């Protein structure tokens, strides 16, 4: 159980890191920073202050704190629009997955690399024919001496062009049901046969990529968990991925700017009050998810609800800014950045339509 004073201490640590970098002129703030704002220097500074791998064992560079403490830290980072993209994927989900399922050699090799911000991870999940239907992946891995050979194509792989490693979901058995032949691997991005080509998005920014694997050798220890257990393992990962504050706070820097600019204009008080209440409720729901994770539970439906409602909130903030924001270039920039990023909010990490189904099926099952 994380007490309030521990949370406060960690929040202060983040705030002072940000304040220092602001003072030094090395801090950049923007909406959707956890995807688009890649800064190895910032991630290294986080590592120096013991802010990565917070819930992991100390022997891997962690701080043995809970998910609730990590929530306090990530909230403060996203509040400030901090450039956290370089360490985000490793810290949020790959590290925890390797901790739960990885063999000791893999843990020793990868986890300290994440907590020291030396390793950068990208997610090799979606494929041209497998988006919402993730189990339909056809990237295949077959056994060879000493490991595996991996062949296939991944798409929408954010920051693959900057990553040192890829998490890859691949099919190791195509004979049975599609959910049963999947396995998870950690692959070196500089291995022979790995090629990355950019996909520029509608904002003109490059974070998406297509990654092809052509007969890439993957050593045996780089298999995460068990062969054929990939689906169960990845579903668990998705709980971590969906249940965090990055599903609520993507456009917080814009909301902050609008609030600061309102001054005596009381015409929008009711709408603002409604948004603040939603923000409060969503932050509390994220907290409830983190608490359950700390209790060892898998809050799949709550995490789905948080993401589905949170991403709606993120977009409603933009609409509010249109109505109530002051007409200055800074706000206009924040609105533009947010708008161009916004179609992705309710699609990435589980589209809202799919999430609604997950929530409903859970409710109908218990009914």
């Amino acid at each position, binding site marked *: 159980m994380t007490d309030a004073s521990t949370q406060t201490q960690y929040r202060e640590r983040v705030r002072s890191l940000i304040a220092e970098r602001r003072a030094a002129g090395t801090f950049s703030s923007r909406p959707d920073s956890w995807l688009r704002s890649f800064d190895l220097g910032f991630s290294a500074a986080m590592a120096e202050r013991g802010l990565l791998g917070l819930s992991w064992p100390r022997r891997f560079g962690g701080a043995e704190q809970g998910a609730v403490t990590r929530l306090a830290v990530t909230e403060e980072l996203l509040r400030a629009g901090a450039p956290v993209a370089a360490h985000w994927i490793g810290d949020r989900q790959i590290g925890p997955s390797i901790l739960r399922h990885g063999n000791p050699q893999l843990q020793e090799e990868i986890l300290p690399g994440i907590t020291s911000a030396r390793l950068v991870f990208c997610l090799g999940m979606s494929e041209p024919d497998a988006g919402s239907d993730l189990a339909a992946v056809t990237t295949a891995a077959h056994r060879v001496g000493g490991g595996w050979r991996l062949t296939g194509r991944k798409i929408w792989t954010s920051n693959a062009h900057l990553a040192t490693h890829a998490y890859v979901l691949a099919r190791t058995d195509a004979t049975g049901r599609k959910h049963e032949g999947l396995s998870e691997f950690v692959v070196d991005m500089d291995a022979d046969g790995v090629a990355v080509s950019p996909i520029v998005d509608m904002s003109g920014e490059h974070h998406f990529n297509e990654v092809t694997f052509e007969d890439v050798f993957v050593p045996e220890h780089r298999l995460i968990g068990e062969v054929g257990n990939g689906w169960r393992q990845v579903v668990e990962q998705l709980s971590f991925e969906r249940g965090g504050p990055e599903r609520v706070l993507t456009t917080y820097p814009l*909301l902050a700017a609008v609030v600061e600019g309102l001054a005596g204009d009381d015409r929008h008080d009711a709408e603002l009050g409604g948004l603040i209440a939603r923000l409060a409720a969503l932050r*509390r729901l994220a907290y409830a998810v983190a608490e359950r994770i700390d209790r060892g539970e898998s809050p799949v439906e709550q995490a789905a609800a948080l993401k589905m409602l949170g991403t709606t909130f993120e977009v409603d903030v933009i609409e509010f800014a249109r109505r109530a924001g002051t007409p200055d270039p800074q706000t206009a920039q924040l609105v533009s950045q947010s708008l161009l990023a916004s179609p992705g909010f309710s699609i990435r990490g589980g589209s809202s339509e799919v999430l609604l189904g997950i*929530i409903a099926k859970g409710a109908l099952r218990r009914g």
Partner: protein
Amino acid sequence: MADTRSSEFADELRAVVQDISSRGDAGDVWPTLVELGLAGVGVDEDAGGSGGDLVDLVTLVGELAAAGVSSPIIEASVGAWTTGRPAGDRIASPVDAGDVSVVDGRVTGEVLVRWPEVSETLVLLTRDGIATVALEGPNVSTSPWPTVGAPMGLVRLTGAAASPLPAPPTSDQVRERLAILRSAASVGAGRAAVARTIDYALAREQFGAPLAAIPAVVSAIGMMRAQLDLADAALAGALREDAPRGAAMAARLSAAAMATAVARTAHQLHGAMGVAQEYPLHPLTTALWDLRDADEREAQIARRLGAAARAGGESAVWEHLSA
């Protein structure tokens, strides 16, 4: 989760509430609740109450609402907590009267009171602090006010005698307690409405399959469930010991938004059956509609919260209003 502080206590309460609500036509359930000591939950025993804290009261209010029992439990309990006088068959009813002033010990204005037949005292949250007014006194007249859910009356005060009630609690503290309890009742009624709707969608067949096989029905159920989870989380947030300033208002507004969504969707998915007087959906949905604007209107609370955000800036929003 907000509603299960001690599941044994909740289980006991649920059994008591089930027993009460199964006594056929609700009729006059209030005297029974008083007799069972439930009206005194959340008020110290040495103040004439039954003991227990706010979380116990939240559990009670939630269970009563989930069972579709309509009663002045919130008014009575908050009235007793505010005045220090235990609730009985007749109660002291809190009324948010922010635009009424007390001048030379007298008040003039019009206010809406819930459960007028059961109320003997108004506990007015006025511009000048809390003051009590006897409903049966001179210069006070009450007439019926149309509403859904709890019965209401319009009270005309023309220089009625008002006795000031010194703090504690303050008007804001009373508002906060009311907000939390209204949220608890909404979440209880919402939970029951969603459960009943899911049962119906699983049982009712059309086109050769349960309604639950229809994709649009699945989406609607998912949305109701998500809104309920959100309102529940907000309520749990308001019940924290160190709950920040905005937590009660946020819970109240989350509950109201959920109430609108759940009432609408529950009726929609029930089809015609849901509007029949005999079918037990309308006690839940009318309560949900009613609770949104009880004490203070949803829109008014939203304006207050927005004004506080504007006045305090981003740091107030982050630390106090949405924490």
